């Protein structure tokens, strides 16, 4: 078996999801090549070479690949994929955008968002917002797979794999990158944070999210949100945790003023410990919470901050 992992990166460094995807490849077993396709992406390729389990880094450095447009990337993936039994990408917006297009070019029925590997052709994946787990066997000769990153640990970075340069990219001329508005934050990233403090409609305003940010900073946590809070404009879209937003599984998830719609639970119920703070004691979030506190969040959050300041008992 030989596996191609498609790295997600920003040309200068790897995105953490790449490390989880490599771990899934390690579970499959076999030679692992890590593809870094970008523009001026030597930095990302150098980091890719350190990832444990990787035999070889393939670097495709071309101006057409600099912005990660699927129209230019998919033919590149198609051109090299036939050398492999498996092609893996993270189930992030990057991987979800790219891999199905490559799968169609290869005439392969992709397997999305796998959470476990049973054998080289059999995988477990959540369906219906995680309310069911399907075990599926692929009958395709080649397997194209996106990986649920929270289901696999991050690979270490203490190796030195060789980097080979590959060419053959073309500008498809179908689309153009105009710009991006990325959320800048000093806090940990939502998908890799050990602790997440998340707010819902109960926060009532953008300003009130400041309370959660302050609590998050005390805990070294990331800040997330339910769809309702994002729709209401309290926080940007990249805060959204849920079935169609980000899937997270931190050690501690503190849900504040979140009722707990199925779609939200789908994104966080694999967290190790869940705390729910909500004034509605009937809120469905309490059904998944390890620790539930029925309280008005505007009183509870300052009290919680204060209690965190007191020395450990």
């Amino acid at each position, binding site marked *: 078996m030989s596996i191609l992992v498609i790295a997600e990166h920003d040309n200068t460094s790897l995105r953490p999801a790449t490390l989880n995807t490599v771990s899934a490849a390690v579970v499959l077993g076999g030679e692992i090549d890590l593809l870094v396709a970008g523009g001026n992406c030597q930095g990302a390729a150098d980091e890719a070479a350190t990832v444990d389990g990787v035999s070889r880094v393939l670097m495709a450095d071309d101006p057409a690949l600099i912005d990660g447009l*699927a*129209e230019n990337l998919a033919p590149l993936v198609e051109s090299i994929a036939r050398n492999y039994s498996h092609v893996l990408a993270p189930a*992030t*917006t990057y991987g979800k*955008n*790219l891999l*199905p*297009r*490559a799968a*169609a*070019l290869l*005439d*392969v029925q*992709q*397997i*999305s*968002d796998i959470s476990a590997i049973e054998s080289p052709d059999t995988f477990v994946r*959540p*369906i*219906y917002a995680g*309310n*069911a*787990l*399907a*075990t*599926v066997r692929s*009958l395709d000769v080649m397997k194209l797979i996106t990986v649920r990153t929270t289901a696999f640990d991050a690979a270490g970075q203490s190796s030195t794999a060789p980097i080979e340069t590959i060419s053959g990219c073309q500008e498809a001329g179908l*689309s153009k990158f*105009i*710009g*991006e*508005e*990325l*959320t800048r934050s000093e806090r940990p990233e939502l998908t890799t944070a050990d*602790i997440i403090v998340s707010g819902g409609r109960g926060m009532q305003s953008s300003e009130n999210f400041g309370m959660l940010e302050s609590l998050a900073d005390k805990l070294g946590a990331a800040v997330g949100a339910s769809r309702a809070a994002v*729709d209401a404009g309290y926080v*940007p*879209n*990249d805060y959204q945790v849920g*079935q*169609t937003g*980000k899937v997270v599984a931190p050690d*501690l998830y503190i849900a504040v003023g979140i009722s707990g719609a199925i779609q939200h639970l789908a994104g966080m*119920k694999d967290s*190790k*410990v869940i705390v729910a703070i909500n004034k509605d004691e009937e809120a469905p979030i*309490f*059904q*998944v919470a*390890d*620790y*539930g*506190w029925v309280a008005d969040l505007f009183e*509870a959050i300052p*009290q919680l901050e*204060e*209690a*965190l300041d007191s020395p*450990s*008992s």
Partner: protein
Amino acid sequence: MKVLVPIKRVIDANIKVRVKADESGVELNNVKMAMNPFCEIAVEEAIRLREAGHAEEIIAVTVGPTQGQETLRTALAMGADRAILVEADPAPESLAVAKLLKAIVDKEAPGLVLLGKQAIDGDNNQTGQMLSGLLGWSIGTFVSRLQVEDAVVRVTREVDGGLENIELIQPAIVTVDLRLNEPRYASLPNIMKAKKKPLDTFTPEALGVDVSPRLETIKVIAPPARASGTRVTSAAELVDKLRNEAKVI
């Protein structure tokens, strides 16, 4: 320009699904079905494009069992002009659906195909991207803002890091995200009118597409339930539990 809107019939988003006792799948008998919520957003956007003078005709298409007609009638009641059912039972996998949609695109020559970014049953998030690959068209996924200009479609994509703006050469494929719009409800007169709008039916055979499955479902089970938790009544108690019982802070 014509706009093609592929839609899917799924279990209503508000229903909690149950897996069958024999682990063969999810219980669909006597369960309320509805249009996939992302597909509703795609239909709504197509109607807004027509209202803004960018689209002349909206064609809704679905692939699946006969009952897909009901979902198509909903799209027609919202404002689509005509509908196409590609009848296949059970509903084929995404790649086969993309091939069937390509056959419809080849017949209809739309300038834009608007789809939901994912269906809330299989949560695959594949069909639009696959269709774009088969057609060799531009693609914008997870779109929360869309603007049609002469030869291009400008879109804002919701990506993991925030927002990304790209420009797509027409014809284009766009998969829509939650915040693009709020779909309208069909009015009663429009529901009545929708019954008279044209609805054509094709089979995969007639479209020359092999829909044999590439995936075999071994089993479908319920996820492990979380153990029931405990209630706390003060911040001090919560912090104590997190420190000394759960040991997560």
